[in-house]
């Protein structure tokens, strides 16, 4: 368990950067609760 254990996370991804699902995959074993994840497009 890392320093994110027990935290609640809001993940805002971007298509040409790091998308939401990619962040979710990285953080799934962090012990944090992902309460919102989305990918947006600003172009």
């Amino acid at each position, binding site marked *: 368990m890392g320093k994110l254990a027990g935290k609640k996370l809001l993940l805002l991804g971007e*298509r*040409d*950067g790091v998308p*939401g699902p990619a962040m979710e995959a990285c953080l799934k074993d962090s012990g944090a609760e992902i309460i919102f994840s989305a*990918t947006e*497009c*600003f172009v």
Partner: protein
Amino acid sequence: MSTKVGIKSYSYCLNHAPETGSHYGGTPYEAYHSGKEQEYLDALPKHIQSYDHALHYAPNQTYIGGISYEEFEALPSGWVNNPLPDEKSKRYGKFGELMPEDEFLGLISACDEFELVWLEKNFAENVSKKLAEDPVITEAIVKRVLRPKNMHELSEIETEVKERAGLYLYNEGKIVGCIRSGHPTDDCLTAHVLMENLAGKASGVLALLHLMKNSGMNPNDLDFVIECSEEGAGDVGQRAGGNFAKAIAEVAGCVNASGCDVRGFCAGPVNAMINAAAQVASGARKNVAVVAGGSIPKLYMNSRDHVKKNLLALEDCVGSFAVLIVPDDGTMPVMRLDVLGKHTVGAGGAPQAVTSALTFEPLQSAGLTFTDVDRYAPELQNHEITEPAGAGNVPLANIKMIAALAVMKKAIEKPAMMDFIKKHGTIGFAHTQGHIPAGVPFIGHACEMINEGKIKRAMIIGKGSLFLARLTNLADGASFLIEAPEPVKTESTLSKEEIKAMLLETLSEVAGRLS
């Protein structure tokens, strides 16, 4: 079947539409209806750039071919404060034009088949005269602007808006017409939706007309059109039934063409190019024009931030493009069908996986490496628009990912990354019109540079934000290569008569030996 097709011609146009955009662009329209952002709405008109400024703006001239890509690349940063000189700021470029808003409204009226566009009589007459001066606008199109059913008194226009849910059209701060509602209850045929669709159609028509001019093709000879914008034309039964392609071909006078639409958000144009190339390579079509009009809702999309930071709101042009695909004859730049990037369902959304699927994997399959591609053209949004809005420099972010992958795959050394980015990347010059910047604006410049012997190979990359439609969390992407032509190998063939003569000669020899 050939795996190459020729890119015979291309066109790129912009329609300046600041007043339409400041009323009906998605962000201002939403702000107006929320009733909570009056300060922003009051400020927006003070941040609009004039048509003359838009003409002198380097990214716009690069898009329409007023300046070459190399001229653009050599310009100092801060294009908005460094206008081009007058001699490089003309309405017409090598690829197309930057049309002023009043003429665009006239063209939208000309594209209307259902009395949906009413223009004030004097405005329609004046704008028809201006349109008649445009070298690609036909007499038939000018006449359509002057159809009595599309010309009305201002009082009739006001009644239509107030009593039947129409939307005003503006020019120089005055009401000059309206878009009418297409149905009393159907959400797919409201004046707002119809305005978007008619503007998409009209800008697509302009691109197709320039394509016919640039290619020297008689419109009668066009076989098929594939339209690849992001608009949805339909009714309550089928919200995006289509078909823009055929509607555009009709106004452009391409009487022997048919067409269909391809969709995929910003990945639509690259997928449409692949679709068109496959049809031509297989012989299914003699030639195909890939066409897209632009988007009114995308106008001033990031203008909240531009206003907040006291910058010019530059998202004021509806973009369009068209590319003509024909069989490869060894004389024109080619598009390869055997080296296609495909972002598969299973590839996932991690940047490394997406970049690999669109660049490394197709190149590897063709025995090529990263440095074999002279220029990568991924998502060419103008960073002077996107950076103040917090969306960063999209083409730079993409080429950095490609360079990083090239290091990982040992195609280049890590210290060479910045050189690779500078040498092989492209600077964005397209409006944030969704599908319009998706790699395809570089097709024209790539072909010009290939024809001038300056590059041999370019990769066009489009990425689509499928997740916006709430059907899937996935994005999509596709890519293809453009290369310099090679002489076409012709197989020698014998005619029936020649075969007959050879057989007779052989039989005669055999008969001679027997006797």
